[in-house]
């Protein structure tokens, strides 16, 4: 009897420890921090810490394999003496402004068309979204073949249809054409995001509003202007915010298509930072170029958030 009770008591005791443990972990103020800590540590170690390092690098004359010294804001100021940086600064605004502007106009048009009654709805959506899904570096490689100086299919088509005269532009070798080329590829790649997200915004607009507007005698254009556009503004603002950030910090398209050339005419902050920081080893200067992205992004984010809040009120 005595032998029999011992294990029974032990098994009764064990679940009580387990129960106590699980009760301990069940408390929200224990489980919450426990669940969030892997993500928190990851961000702390691999996002926040590198960000602080970037700031430190940018304030020093760090060069690969040499001790560094603190030099204050010298990097940020000296960059303005560099033609390459001034050109890059200008490029960033031209590239971002034109690409995002075109994506807004084309994105709204495409979303309006996709919102019509269509016969092959799924297939059409699939085709439209495709550029967004395929690895950008690889699809851009396809574009660089399309813009090839000797065998450009773009030039062939334009020549064959009589739009341009032979020999046609050398897309990636001429200043303005190269900028046009990288903007076209960025629009191509970013348009699906605009169209599909704006389509979701369009679908959410109640049909009754259009019926009411039509009953009041509003034509298609004024219905778009007074019903669609005001109700789409919130979604549009968020899409523009995302797109501005990612267009401004574009790297893949430039790197694969032009490497920043010809003569820096398509360099953006990310590609110039890589060239200066890694290819020539001036990490301090490279970090400073990267960080020029940051205030510009902050301004965009701030403006967008303010706009969204104003819309909400």
């Amino acid at each position, binding site marked *: 009897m005595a032998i029999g009770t011992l294990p029974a008591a032990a098994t009764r005791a064990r679940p009580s420890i387990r129960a106590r443990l699980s009760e301990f*972990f069940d408390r929200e103020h224990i489980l*919450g921090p*426990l*669940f969030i800590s*892997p*993500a928190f540590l*990851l*961000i702390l*170690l*691999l*996002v926040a810490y590198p*960000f602080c*390092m970037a700031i430190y690098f940018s304030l020093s004359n760090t060069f690969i394999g040499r001790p560094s010294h603190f030099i204050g804001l010298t990097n940020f100021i000296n960059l303005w003496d560099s033609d390459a940086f001034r050109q890059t600064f200008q490029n960033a605004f031209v590239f971002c402004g034109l690409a995002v502007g075109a994506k807004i106009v*084309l994105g709204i048009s*495409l979303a309006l*068309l*996709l919102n*019509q*009654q269509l016969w092959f709805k799924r297939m059409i*959506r*699939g*085709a*439209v*979204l*495709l*550029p*967004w*899904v*395929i*690895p*950008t*570096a*690889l*699809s851009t490689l*396809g574009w660089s*073949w399309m813009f*090839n100086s000797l*065998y450009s*299919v773009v030039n062939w088509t334009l020549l064959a249809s009589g739009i341009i005269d032979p020999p046609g532009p050398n897309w990636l070798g001429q200043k303005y054409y190269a900028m046009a080329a990288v903007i076209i590829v960025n629009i*191509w790649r970013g*348009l*699906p*995001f605009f169209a599909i*997200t704006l389509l*979701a915004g369009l679908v959410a607009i109640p049909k009754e509003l259009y019926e009411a507007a039509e009953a009041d005698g509003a034509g298609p254009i004024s219905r778009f202007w007074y019903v669609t556009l005001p109700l789409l503004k919130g*979604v549009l603002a*968020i899409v523009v915010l995302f797109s501005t*950030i*990612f267009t401004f910090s574009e790297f*893949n398209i430039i*790197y*694969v298509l032009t490497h920043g050339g010809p003569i820096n005419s398509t360099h953006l902050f*990310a590609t110039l930072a*890589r060239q200066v920081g*890694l290819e020539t080893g001036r990490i301090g200067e490279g*970090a400073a170029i*990267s960080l020029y*992205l940051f205030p510009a*992004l902050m301004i965009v*984010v701030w403006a967008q958030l303010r706009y969204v809040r104003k819309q909400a009120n």
Partner: protein
Amino acid sequence: MKGRKFWNQVLAHAALMPFIIFAVFPFYHMALTSLKQNRELYDRTAVPLLIRQGATLEHYNRLLWETEFITWTKNSLLVTILATVISLVIGTIAAYALARLKFFAVAGLGTGIFVTYLVPTSLLFLPLAQVVNWLGLGDSKWALVVTYPTFLVPFCTWLLMGYFRTVPKEVEECAMVDGATRIQALWRIVLPIAVPGLVCAALFAFTLSWNEFIYALTFTSSSEQITASVGVTTELIRGDIYYWGSLMAGAVLASVPIVILYVFFLDYYVSGLTAGAIK
């Protein structure tokens, strides 16, 4: 009236054609180039839109047997699958904590994760390369397994928070009244309801890490360690000599895994894209 509706529909399709051609043509041209013989490819008098002198698989043969393409693809798969699984696990528990639990600084942490979600990879790659070296992961694909979660976890967390909030609290509370612990309730009740969200997060994590380029380009360089995108864009170009046929074959083959997922899960892509931006 019915006739007018029909013609409106025809008009909408006609207006969509330029957009569809713009979206799809580069892929058509890529596939076409990869199948053309060099003789026709580099003939300036040939029509570039068609194959007229017979198709060939020579570019694919060269790519598969004379380059390290298979190694690069294996690297891509390994990095992508591991990074996706790690990010999904970390993202799921973080999202659950942020969406459901009340604890110290929960709102601040949520904002922090959202801000991280907006930080572009091109801002941090320089110092991160140093961190990677310190961790002893310089020129190693494991550096990518470690760093990809930095942009995948914020994305997964943000997406899943939205899904978890749609699960009614009462369902979970019922299970807990019946004696289930919170972790059991999460595992048996909340996660099964949130499966569409998990599929969506997994698909996007897979796509984002398969498509990642700047970290892969910066943190790895030797032929045994690089991923497919980096391999095709750097190793296949020797000096100024471009083997366009093989390059396009590489671009086509390295896109295949994503295209397969895409064809089967198109609706998840559409809903995830909108959710990621709006929620």
